[in-house]
């Protein structure tokens, strides 16, 4: 279809906005699905699929209880967390590559944006000055410091193969399929899954459903939060999950994404495949979770270390397999 420049711009803008809204709109559903499946696996009926939407709605309309000595950091943090996560998620290719702003942040920048969110969250945890908040923040930062090197090596391995850190470029390249199946990619995938689990506070690193404070990490930080603030943080967590799903999808299963020509059919296909991928991941995750038990805090290094090892191996194997 022949378009003039500014209509092309308009279309591009529209597509970008579509993605940005989609990742937020769909996030609670995905979270609900994982909870549902998990409950099923535990022989419970579990909450309805749409329960997260209802929770958010409820929280939004409650009044927020704020500790006396809370500062503006405490109040602004939820919005910063949500915004950073959302922007990051909006820039990860989901159903189409080469979107209007896809170039404005590459893999490293996306990871860093999540870092911004984490920074805000950790500060929020320390603001009121409780034992649990500090505990959560310090553990969260420790986990992050273990996860980031692995993440960088993953980026390195992928960039070695794709010759770029530009997510949509990588996806476009891998989607063509002429890269083929690589050992390095497999290892990188493994590493990314482990990192993702740690980053999203899933079992075995953290238990989103725990009520024993000492085992909490993520929950411990937001212990003081309530009402809309809590809602923002919850939403951010859900968006983050979607982000990681689509990251895995676009790096390791980019098939079906709408490439250069944005024909409606291609877009529809891309959309469909993306949703399908999300559903699959949302089912796989709880299955994996139910098979393992929560770890002690100081076992994390070993766990994330394995991710680091895998990513490093991916890099080095890449060198070897290129063979020069």
């Amino acid at each position, binding site marked *: 279809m022949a378009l003039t420049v500014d209509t092309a711009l308009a279309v591009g803008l529209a597509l970008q906005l579509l993605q940005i809204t989609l990742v937020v709109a769909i996030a609670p559903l995905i979270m609900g699905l994982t909870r549902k499946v998990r409950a099923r696996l535990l022989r419970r009926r579990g909450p309805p699929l749409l329960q997260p939407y209802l929770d958010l709605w409820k929280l939004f309309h*409650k009044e927020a209880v704020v500790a006396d000595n809370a*500062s503006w950091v405490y109040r602004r943090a939820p919005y910063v967390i949500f915004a950073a996560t959302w922007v990051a998620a909006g820039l990860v290719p989901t159903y189409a590559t080469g979107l209007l702003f896809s*170039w*404005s942040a590459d893999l490293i920048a996306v990871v860093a944006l999540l870092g911004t969110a984490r920074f805000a969250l950790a500060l929020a945890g320390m603001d009121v000055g409780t034992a649990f908040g500090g505990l959560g923040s*310090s553990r969260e*930062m420790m986990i992050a410091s273990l996860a980031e*090197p692995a993440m960088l090596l993953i980026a390195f391995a992928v960039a070695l193969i794709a010759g770029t850190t530009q997510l949509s470029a990588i996806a476009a390249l891998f989607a063509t399929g002429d890269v083929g199946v690589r050992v390095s990619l497999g290892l990188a995938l493994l590493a990314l899954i482990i990192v993702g689990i740690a980053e999203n506070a899933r079992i075995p690193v953290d238990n989103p459903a725990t009520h024993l404070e000492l085992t909490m990490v993520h929950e411990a930080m937001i212990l003081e939060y309530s009402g809309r603030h809590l809602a923002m943080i919850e939403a951010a967590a859900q968006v983050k999950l979607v982000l990681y799903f689509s990251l895995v999808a676009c790096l390791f299963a980019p098939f079906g994404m709408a490439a250069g020509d944005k024909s409606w059919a291609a877009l529809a296909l891309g959309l469909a495949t993306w949703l399908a991928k999300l559903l699959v991941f949302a089912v796989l995750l709880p299955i994996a979770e139910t098979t393992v038990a929560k770890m002690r805090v100081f076992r994390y290094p070993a766990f994330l270390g394995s991710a680091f090892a895998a990513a490093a191996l991916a890099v080095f194997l890449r060198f070897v397999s290129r063979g020069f």
Partner: protein
Amino acid sequence: MPEVAIGLWCIAGFLGIGVAATILGGRAIATPLVYGATLLVALGAVLLALTTLLGGAAPSTVVLPIGLPGIGAHFRLDALSAFFMLVVNLGAAAASLYGIGYGRHEHSPMRVLPFFGPFLAGMNLVLLAADAFSFLLSWEFMSLASWTLVVAHHREPANIRAGFIYLAMASFGTLCLLLAFGLLAAPGGDFTFAGMRGATVGGSAAALATLLALVGAGSKAGLVPLHVWLPLAHPAAPSHVSALLSGVMTKVGVYGFIRIVFDVVGDFSSWAGLVVVLAGGATAVLGVLYAVMQRDLKRLLAYSTVENIGIVFIGLGLALAFRANGQGPAAALALTAALFHVFNHSVFKSLLFFGAGAVLTATGERDTEKLGGLIHRMPQTAVVFLIGCMSIAALPPLNGFVSEWLTFQAILLSPQLPQWGLKFAVPAVGAMLALAAALAGACFVKAFGVVFLSRPRSPAAAQATEVDGFALTAMLTLAWICILAGTLPGLVVDALAPVARQLAFVALPPQAGLPWLSLVPIADSRSSYNGLVIFFFLVASGTMTAAVVHRLASRSTRKSPIWDCGYPLDSPVTQYSSSSFAQPIRRVFGTVLFGVHETVDMPRPGETRAGRFRMRVRDPAWRFVYGPLARGVLRGAVRLNRLQFLTIRRYLALVFAALIVLMLVVAIWR
């Protein structure tokens, strides 16, 4: 008048201010006068540097009839010098502005004011010097001037010790550089940089010179394990001087390395790059680990300087490696990343030290275990300090992230390198860099969280008051620079182009013309980043959501006491403290590296005594390098000291023995 002459006049101005301060004596008016004057001169120097850097003027040189006989003192202002002059004098200007207010709290101004100007003069002089003698002279003069500032508060024994270690290390570094110059000048005996550039030294000599330069300049910049003086000396000085020491003078060390290795030595083998990269990586990780474990705020900042120097040296090492393999654009990228980080760090580290100084004046405390809740008492300081923390933690959309992102991009180019050692080492260093970045995040969450957030841990903290306008203005300016450099990185990269062209022979493609002002270091397909868009998106989405939530959902809040899972204790000691925050990281990384040893003795139920937590962290550098060294020297001194107490007969015996030995030498000679 050539630019370099103007630069020399600025230096003369700084020196003159020093003299004037001495004459003015301890009068109250002296403080604002001195700092105001240095502010003006520094701004002039900034202007000069900018015009030279952006105007793309040809290098200008001046030869004064002083210095080494027959050679004279050569001074030269080229792109490299201009860039560092910009960094130095930007910091200097900010520090002066800050000092106008801060200096009023100084109880013995005569130990600070007369040396402030000369210190600035020394740093600028190093940047302009263009022969070995003037270079080392200004180099050591800078150390000397800063030393006087380190020992300004001379009644605390700790500061005296810091001053001693600092000056000793500085002289060690100078002697290393001296040896390096000795090698480089050896063929022609010509001590001018121009002459050394011309002279062709052997490969091994060049390599040795590079190593000596790394050690010499590294000891000034704070490479592990030459960093030991830094965390002692930087906190000892008054805070605006600490800012200069940490944010600016370490950069002069970096300049020294660049000048000697990239410019004077010129040709080198890629292994040099490998050494530098590894040194940088180790420095980055160790430095930030030290930082996380500190409880003294200023010392924490000083250690984080060590980390950032490590990051800079990673970039420089990569540049060396790429350049050695004739990969110009990659070298330019790495170099640009390093210099960009130099600029950034000088800005936000100064900002953070100013913040620490503000806290110090407001509460009289540097110990984070006694601070907290200051965000309520000093809101503006809190905001700017937060910006500083976020920049140094390399969070988008601020400037710290851009330079680290560029460094990562350079690292991602390393597969081009033919040497296998580099192929394997560089990704590992990249992981170290990531680790450093993450730990820096932890470190500054701790710094801000413990100092400004949470509940005050001491009455002093509870009674804090906001600092004066000058200090706030200085900090605010720097904060804005952080934001601008983060959102408009392209402009900074373009400004660095002349330097890259000078040292890597090519520059990055011009960025200013790109759509949306985004940053594309190599090629569009390769990688790009747009701080502006990210910033816009963040602000937009944040405010939008907030607005929507407040409009459509509830906006009401209720104040209530802390919940804390139902059993809140109002004693502030129940909070997570600085050292408890660091505990997980300490456990994970410190046990092996720092010999961290924690013991808890809990009173039995019914016992009334308090429980006790004891922790020991041992610095490997002291444990394995300096401790043994010092012990060895003392042991030798004790042994030899017996010679002070011999009888005359024994002394005669010594003489006799020496005589006999010499006679035997003569006897067997030929």
